[in-house]
């Protein structure tokens, strides 16, 4: 079962801003920290001391079980950390920086609440995963500011059976009238209906993460999933199916959120300014190092998942497939410029312009003066770091 969406639903998949205006190539703010230029060897980004400027233990709250999409974070600790399968944590020294890092699994481990909410109720949490849409929806009560976005494109998909359908866009799904199965609070559904790409009548919000309905329907459903998981899983692992599936990226339908971007509480921006100035470039580099050489970190992730012994099951083949997909679909990529992990404020703005009215129509309380700059910042980004 791919339940990640279940979690992310709380965060509500963000409607990614569409089409980054290619002409502008995005507006990235110039970094304020003075960091080594691109000529410096990559390893030097990690060789700084964070002691005293960062919390002694940097705690990251993720949104699901450990998975390859989180590889960049786990790469910061690397192999050799301590696994606590009961609590769902992986702890170890953050490279040679002199501080510890603890990565906490989300999803069932936190009662399916959102990582941002956890970050507020447990002040020990320094950074958390969030989706742009959730940041917008939760801005009034739990404002969170993104400091780096390891994933350029969100991996969320609508998957379908090529034996029954052939779709080139989400609007084709609307035309077919097929039932679209999704998690109740996945906000992308309302977005797709609001933008006229799906019909309200074809939505079925009762997805529980299990493949049962897909298999029982013989592939007549269109179902939400993740490009990095379901296609491989359904083709190779799910009894009663074991056939290829095809999919449409939600990003292409305008749902251009920054998925699982790293956010902090607003006061951390000032309080831990020097920390973030060193940590963010490290994180950028870590994502690059991971996707270039994922094996060691994947082994860590596989080990943790195995010890957790739940319905969330990963295999080396699945991890490889996830990494390949992240590369081939540009899920992990520089985007329109040469930097990995920075934010395109035009993209966020375009997304907001469509997303916010739809949400307000549902009664969400979103301040009128919300701008992209309030939920994301490039000030710590090292623009020289890219794939």
């Amino acid at each position, binding site marked *: *079962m791919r339940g990640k969406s279940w979690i992310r639903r709380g965060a509500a998949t963000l409607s990614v801003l569409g089409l980054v205006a290619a002409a502008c190539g995005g507006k990235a703010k110039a970094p304020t920290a003075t960091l080594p230029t691109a000529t410096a060897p990559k390893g030097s980004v990690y060789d700084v001391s964070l002691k005293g400027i960062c919390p002694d233990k940097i705690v990251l709250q993720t949104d699901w079980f450990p998975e390859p999409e989180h590889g960049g974070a786990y790469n910061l600790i690397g192999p050799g950390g301590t696994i606590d399968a009961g609590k769902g944590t992986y702890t170890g020294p953050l490279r040679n920086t002199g501080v510890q890092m603890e990565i906490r699994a989300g999803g069932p481990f*936190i*009662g399916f609440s959102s990582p941002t909410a956890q970050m507020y109720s447990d002040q020990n949490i320094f950074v958390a995963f969030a989706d742009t849409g959730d940041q917008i929806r939760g801005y009034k009560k739990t404002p969170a500011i993104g400091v780096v976005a390891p994933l350029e494109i969100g991996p969320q998909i609508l998957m379908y059976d090529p034996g029954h359908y052939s779709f080139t866009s989400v609007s084709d799904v609307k035309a077919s009238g097929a039932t679209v199965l999704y998690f109740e609070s996945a906000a992308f559904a309302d977005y797709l209906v609001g933008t006229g790409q799906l019909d309200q009548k074809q939505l079925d919000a009762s997805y529980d*993460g299990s*493949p049962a309905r897909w298999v029982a329907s*013989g592939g007549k459903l269109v179902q939400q999933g993740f490009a990095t998981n379901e296609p491989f899983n359904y083709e190779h692992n799910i*009894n*009663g199916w074991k056939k290829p599936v095809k999919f449409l990226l939600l990003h292409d339908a305008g749902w251009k959120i920054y998925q699982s971007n790293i956010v902090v509480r607003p006061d951390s921006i000032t309080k831990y300014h020097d920390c973030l100035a060193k940590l963010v470039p490290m994180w950028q580099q870590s994502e690059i190092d991971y996707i270039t050489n994922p094996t060691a970190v994947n082994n860590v992730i596989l080990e943790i998942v195995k010890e957790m012994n*739940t319905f969330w*099951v990963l295999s080396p083949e699945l991890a490889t497939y996830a990494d390949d997909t992240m590369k081939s679909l540009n899920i992990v990529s520089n985007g329109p410029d040469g930097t990995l992990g920075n934010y395109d404020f035009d993209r966020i703005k375009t997304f907001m312009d469509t997303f916010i009215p739809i949400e307000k129509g549902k009664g969400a309380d979103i301040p009128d003066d919300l701008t992209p700059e309030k939920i994301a910042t490039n000030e710590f980004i090292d623009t020289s770091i890219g794939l």
Partner: protein
Amino acid sequence: MKPVRDDQAVAGPVVPAEAGPIRRVRTRPEPMATKRGLGWQVLAVAGPPIAVAAVFVGIWLLLSYVVLSPTQRFLLPPPQEVVKVGFLDWENLRQVLVTGLLPTTQVAMTGLAIAIALGMLWAILMSQAAWIERSTYPYAVVIQTIPIIAIVPLVGILIGFNFKGRVLACVIISIFPIITNTLFGLKSADASLQDLFTLHGANRTTRLLKLQLPAALPAIFTGFRISAGLSVIGAIVGDFFFRQGNPGIGRLIDIYRAQLQGEQLITTIFFSSLLGIVVFWGFGYLGNRLIRSWHESAQERQ
């Protein structure tokens, strides 16, 4: 003066078992049981349940083979598959029992014990003063109706997403019958008995311990039996929402759902039901023994 005895009593004075059964005049010959033998007796007792079970299995097979198509059969595997894969495969069975039933039983029993302690205490307090009942009983009703899913984040943060959270979910789900049945029992002590205690200067505690609680035992045990099944459900619900540590059957259900392992899913359901039945029966037996001497509900049927 010689004490006067009443005529033949309904039951004679209590005598040791060796002295023989109650004296009763035989008015008709021994029933046919001795003639036809043990076989018929066994058939009479065991026959109906076996017949109903056979019907049950028949309906199951019908659903599995006729109603469901082959691709859908994983939703309800036929009984023999369940037995083969779920029970006869030791690895599978071990997984269900050790990683599922055992942790869930721990949560259910802990939750039930706490529910009984708190529930009875609350009911006793309410029975002592009308104003306490009036102002707090509605909250007991509210507790029963709270959807666990709505309070998961709050509970998780205050108490933990682990064993303690699971136990709390279990307590919330199973406490209401304890409260309401205990209160009902405490209040139904006979009015004349209450007068008797008043007349002879009994204080609150004496009245509670010597009159109200014994009188309430049948109702109290009814509450226990109802909560027995609820505590199992509560533990499994707790598993779903509070996953840290060592959750039980709830986690297994998720695993089997994800892999479409219908046989093991049904095996799991079997054992969780069994747990509920055992606790239910256990309380019934215990309650019966305690009230057998004086309450109609515990009479052995002839």
